[in-house]
């Protein structure tokens, strides 16, 4: 391996057989390149899907009332279901030990938001303090709602980073400014950001109790949101959320006299369940990518073996000459393998570097839904290169060994 003379001999051979070397190298390099790109996109898809679910807490459960579609106990279909405080309170009691965070929500519709003489187009929602953890909001300035705001029905508002940037860019801080919401002044006490990015930052939050009183909400609620305690095991978490969802659904259907099989009257969205479906899909896609990648590598190995066979065939006479001049069998095997391994290694690493480079440069700029920052585990890629080199060596060994065993006379007769 560290025999300088042999290296020189190999470089001579490579230099004088450029096309052959290039073709061998190309099949190896492209195999690695394709594999790494595939794996990168597999990872990118996984990242993308993980990102989609990052917007809300993973164990969250969302309840949306709708319109009944089925006749049930003398009630006509087409009835709009209205959630009320008592529903929320009852669920809080019924499922107390299963809930981590809970918050009802009231959408203030047809509200006008003004700041000074600017009219702003943002949603206003009444929520509870724990909504922060359900929606995965982080606090950039000031504070979120607290229980005291809720109890005393304070007229305060929490705005987002986006609103802050769009409306209050001239001020050092929007804290203490007043927003006019449909004629009533709300003092800004905090700025939040959403993990899901700016498209989740179009909302102004006010305390639910304030919202119900000031905007004529009575005891009506638009939806309910919960998070369940985190469970380490993914399947257990899914099972927990499905159980929770079913209990919730049964209660709400009974409370609102809805047919058990009416799917549109009470809708419960459960990211965990969705996530499970996506993850199993993801698993399938990743498996597929691996499968294609491994096939590519196998094709690469077959290519290398094929070229090795041709190389040995082409060099039979040369091998005969070398043997007549005193080359030992192992030096013939060594020479052919050394050359094969050297070419495979150089080509493999070239493919690796090019593909990693491409992922590195293009990866962060990929802006497609469900594909985020395609990248590949360097160790996995490196291992693949070594597997390919090893396989190339094994594939090269047998023809090389056979070549070394060739009878000199027969080899020299080979035209």
């Amino acid at each position, binding site marked *: 391996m560290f025999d300088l*003379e042999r290296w*020189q*001999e190999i470089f*001579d*051979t490579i230099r*004088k*057989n450029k096309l052959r070397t290039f073709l061998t190298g190309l099949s190896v390099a492209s195999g690695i390149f394709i594999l790494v790109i595939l794996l990168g996109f597999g990872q990118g898809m996984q990242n993308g899907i993980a990102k989609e679910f990052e917007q809300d807490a993973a164990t969250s459960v969302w309840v949306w009332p709708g319109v009944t579609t089925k006749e049930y106990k003398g009630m006509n279909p087409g009835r709009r279901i209205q959630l009320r405080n008592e529903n929320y309170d009852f669920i809080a009691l019924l499922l107390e030990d299963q809930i981590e965070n809970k918050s009802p929500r009231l959408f203030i519709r047809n509200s006008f938001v003004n700041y000074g003489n600017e009219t702003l187009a943002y949603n206003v929602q009444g929520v509870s303090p724990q909504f922060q953890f359900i929606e995965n909001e982080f606090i950039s300035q000031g504070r979120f709602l607290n229980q005291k705001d809720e109890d005393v029905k304070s007229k305060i508002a929490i705005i987002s980073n986006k609103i802050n940037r769009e409306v209050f860019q001239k001020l050092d801080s929007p804290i203490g400014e007043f927003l006019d919401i449909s004629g009533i002044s709300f003092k800004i006490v905090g700025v939040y950001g959403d993990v899901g990015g700016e498209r989740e930052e179009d909302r102004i939050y006010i305390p639910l109790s304030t919202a119900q009183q000031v905007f004529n909400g009575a005891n009506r609620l638009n939806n309910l949101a919960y998070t369940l305690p985190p469970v380490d095991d993914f399947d257990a978490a899914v099972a927990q959320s499905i159980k929770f969802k079913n209990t919730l659904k049964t209660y709400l259907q009974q409370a609102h006299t809805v047919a058990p099989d009416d799917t549109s009257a009470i809708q419960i969205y459960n990211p965990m369940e969705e996530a499970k479906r996506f993850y199993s899909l993801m698993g399938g896609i990743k498996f597929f990518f691996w499968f294609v990648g491994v096939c590519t590598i196998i094709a690469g190995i077959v290519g290398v073996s094929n070229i090795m066979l041709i190389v040995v065939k082409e060099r039979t*006479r*040369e091998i*005969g*000459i*070398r*043997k*007549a*001049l*005193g*080359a*030992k*069998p*192992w*030096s013939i095997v060594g020479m052919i393998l050394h050359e094969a391994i050297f070419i495979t290694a150089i080509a493999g690493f070239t493919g690796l570097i090019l593909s990693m480079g491409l992922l590195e440069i293009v990866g962060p700029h990929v802006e497609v839904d469900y594909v985020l920052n395609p990248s590949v585990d360097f160790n996995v890629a490196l291992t693949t290169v070594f597997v390919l080199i090893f396989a190339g060596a094994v594939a090269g060994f047998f023809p090389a060994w056979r070549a*070394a*065993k060739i*009878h*000199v*006379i027969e080899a*020299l007769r080979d035209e």
Partner: protein
Amino acid sequence: MIEIKNLHKSYKMGSNSLHVLKGINFSVEEGELVAIMGSSGSGKSTLLNILGMLDELDEGSYTLDGVPIKNLNETKAANYRNKFLGFVFQSFNLINYKNAMENVALPLYYQKVGRKERQEKALKYLDQVGLKEWATHLPSELSGGQKQRVAIARAMAAEPKVLLADEPTGALDSKTSYEVMDLIQKINDQGNTILIVTHEPDIANMCKRIVHLKDGIIIEDKKIEQIRAAQYVQ
């Protein structure tokens, strides 16, 4: 230098066995120039292959420079070939992607001679065969006679005990043949032992001794008055 006693060799051809060499007794002294003659099928190439350790004998003994050549495995044979023997072939057998100098230097590579020394020696031997200016040319750029002279230089570069030439002029026209024979004679004049297999009487007459093979036995072994090839070469 070479001592062969009661050499037998047969080849299996399916169920038949072809007895090619049927008891050869033969010896060569240092500095001899021997022509082995015979029609095709007489066993002359087989004899040369055995002498060259490219093939194994079935029966008998072979001693080269006092070393008994027997029970050879591939590695040992390679070692002996490299140390004791230089080969010249009818079809030259140069490596086509290596230039003249690199071809000549190749046996030295297998003797583990350093690169620099290899090149110096290779140039020295190329100079001896009159091809120093052609050192960087590929075999494809050389004429047949030049190729054979490169092959002879290569065979000599390893400084072998015996030079074995299998029809060295078989692929050359007569003028070029004489040039090559002139070279071989000059090498022999320096004291090198050379065996030539040929079926051309004029080539054989340029040697010092002719061994006639027929049907696997030596029918004639005589010393002759050497005809110098130089007189045919301008």
